[in-house]
């Protein structure tokens, strides 16, 4: 029997959907066992009927509903609620859906600050743009912004979390095949460090972290990853210790580290409720590293600013 799948993207970038397509030929295998009934990126099913004349937003019924993106406006709420109503299982796909993702960095500001900046940039024609709001903000036939950027489970119940920005195509494939065959889904629950083959000798006399402004030492051009010293031990901020592992997919090696670049935490916290900023700062402090050597710390929550982790009032306190 085929499984019906509906998919939606909310406050998202399409990267999660492209990661689905990046399953490549395996996507064709999935299509043998799954019927896609709704997927705006690839299919023409409409909210208000195919003639655009219905008054209520409607999405077809499905066994599995996949949702990427966070929730930022009134339409996202409506679509998420309709998906919940019509789908037996809801998968939160990607770190925007599971934790707010990069767009939740906007939670450090209130909407007015965000709108004020966007509608008054150097290239914006401000003079000729005053409307009834007196500020020139668009307001007609577009969904109202919520007060903040929310993770999906702050608005609807989520059954399965697939973090990652985006999740690796291998994970998406395993999740979909597990669902179709009724098997239990096993996802890695370790940290990025647990999957990282770099050499660790202890931090030595490291006291301060450096910004990533120069190349780390990694030997000859093609030297394998297990010959490179851990980037954190080389003195670069690396979020591996506080980030959910698995970004390398079946190949295992963490993606950024393989590119000789430190981890920034795109798989979200190791435990769903974890706080990447707090956990990272704690880890640094307990290793005697001066956290004032970091230029700022909001960025440590760049992937997980939903769930009230980032709030406007933070900016009024002194940033460490």
């Amino acid at each position: 029997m085929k499984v019906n799948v509906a998919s939606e993207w909310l406050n998202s970038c399409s990267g999660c959907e492209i990661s689905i397509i990046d399953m490549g030929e395996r996507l064709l295998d999935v299509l043998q066992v799954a019927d896609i009934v709704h997927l705006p990126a690839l299919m023409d099913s409409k909210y208000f009927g195919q003639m655009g004349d219905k008054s209520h937003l409607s999405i077809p019924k499905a066994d599995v509903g996949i949702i990427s993106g966070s929730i930022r406006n009134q339409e996202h709420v409506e679509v998420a609620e309709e998906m919940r109503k019509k789908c037996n299982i809801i998968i939160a796909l990607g770190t925007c859906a599971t934790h707010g993702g990069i767009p939740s960095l906007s939670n450090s500001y209130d909407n007015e600050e965000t709108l004020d900046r966007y509608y008054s940039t150097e290239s914006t024609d401000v003079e000729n743009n005053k409307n009834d709001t007196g500020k020139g903000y668009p307001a007609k036939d577009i969904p109202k912004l919520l007060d903040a950027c929310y993770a999906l489970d702050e608005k609807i119940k989520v059954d399965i979390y697939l973090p990652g920005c985006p999740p690796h195509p291998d994970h998406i494939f395993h999740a979909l095949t597990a669902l179709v065959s009724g098997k239990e889904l096993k996802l890695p629950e370790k940290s990025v460090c647990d999957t990282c083959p770099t050499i660790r000798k202890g931090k030595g006399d490291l006291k301060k972290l450096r910004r990533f402004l120069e190349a780390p030492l990694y030997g000859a051009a093609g030297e394998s990853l297990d010959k490179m010293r851990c980037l954190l031990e080389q003195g670069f901020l690396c979020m591996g210790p506080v980030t959910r592992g698995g970004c390398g997919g079946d190949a295992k090696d963490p993606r950024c580290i393989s590119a000789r670049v430190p981890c920034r935490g795109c798989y979200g916290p190791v435990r769903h409720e974890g706080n990447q900023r707090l956990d990272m700062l704690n880890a640094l402090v307990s290793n005697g590293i001066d956290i004032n050597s970091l230029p700022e710390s909001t960025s440590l929550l760049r992937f997980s600013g939903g769930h009230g982790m980032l709030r406007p009032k933070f900016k009024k306190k002194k940033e460490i």
Partner: protein
Amino acid sequence: MGKMINIQPITRIEGHASIGIQLDDDGNVADARVNVMSLRGFEKFVEGKPAEELPRIVNRICGICPWMHHLASNKAVDGCFGVVPTPAGHKLRELMQTISHAEDKLLHFFFLAAADFVIGPDSDYAVRNVIGIVKANPELASKVVKMRQMAKMILDKFSKKTIHPVAGVPGGFAKPLLEEERVDILDKMRQILDFAMFTMDFAKKEVFPKYLETIQSLGVIKTGFIGTVDDEGALNLYDGKLRLMKPDMTYEEFAPANYTDYLAEKIIDHSYGKFPYAKSWNEGFSMDLENPKGIYRANTLARINVADKMATPKAQAELEEFRSLFGRPAQATLLYHYARLIEEVYACERAIEILEDPVITDPDVRAKVEPKAGRGVGCVEAPRGTLIHDYSTDENGLITRANLIVGTTHNLGPINMSVNQAARSLIKNGTYDEGTLNKIEMAVRAYDP
């Protein structure tokens, strides 16, 4: 007032938008427009962040073309910190960007747009998609999936993370290219070039001739164009000067850093996204179909219209054939698809050229940078149009101000006009069906927003 038609969401496009068509009492179009539904506020929330982190933050603007944001951002940070990337770092960035273009165009043509032509604009919506193509023409579909995957995996394997890349860094690139990798990628790019030529032929035989009438009527408007050219006036995707052309072919050229002298953005009440227009034409902004003001277009058709020539031989031959059929500048909106395939050929040829340049395997890929106060404007041609990132930093190299003009937004005015034109010419006296509404969306899809 008559009925309101609400096409929501616009599907098989990259972004989030809807079309509203207001009919009058006789069932004719009173007003038609495109609403851009979301706003994420990158311009605000990057403030205070270390500039070198921006290329890994702003790439999340778009998961289809993250390399474009990643590289425009790297260029802008280079500017702020006053650093010039090493020659190999520069070339590796361009290589990634060019291959990403090649991948993106296959994705758009076959996965998003082709169903309208291969399955047909009036066909049932349930099969009018890439899955329908897989069922109708499994051989072609499996070839497409294989080739697109090959391009994508070149990027993934070498850069290690291609959706939301991290390998571009201020000062250059994070890792060098090995000789055996170069040979492997070169071989694959030659196969993709062959496929690009196959696609070009397929489209010229099976697609464009069948839809000539639609091409010459659907969503047709008259506008200016913008794109990047090199010193010889040839199209360049990665670097060069911007050429802003009026409908009569006269043009101005400028360095990307001076963009605010030439371009401005209008706030439109029904769209979170702002609508850019040509400020330097001094005629204001109007989307009037008969007499538009300040309206220019970006993306494939725009680039091949502003360019005097293509820098590679096969693409040049295709451009000549295109011009002999449609002239210069070509205004028909559906020709964006044709132009996209010409650029596909160029992107493959250009990637091969870069791979044949010995500097590409030089291990000196990254110059050390020092954070400092400055300003930098980074510009690349994204698949969807000219992309501009403009940052300023303080003495610690933290962002004090950022302004972005994203490729798609240049076309917001033109997309609205094309939708208006299509709706007015297709909906008459209350007569329309699902196929009609899909054709109106086709006018949007051509722009690949």
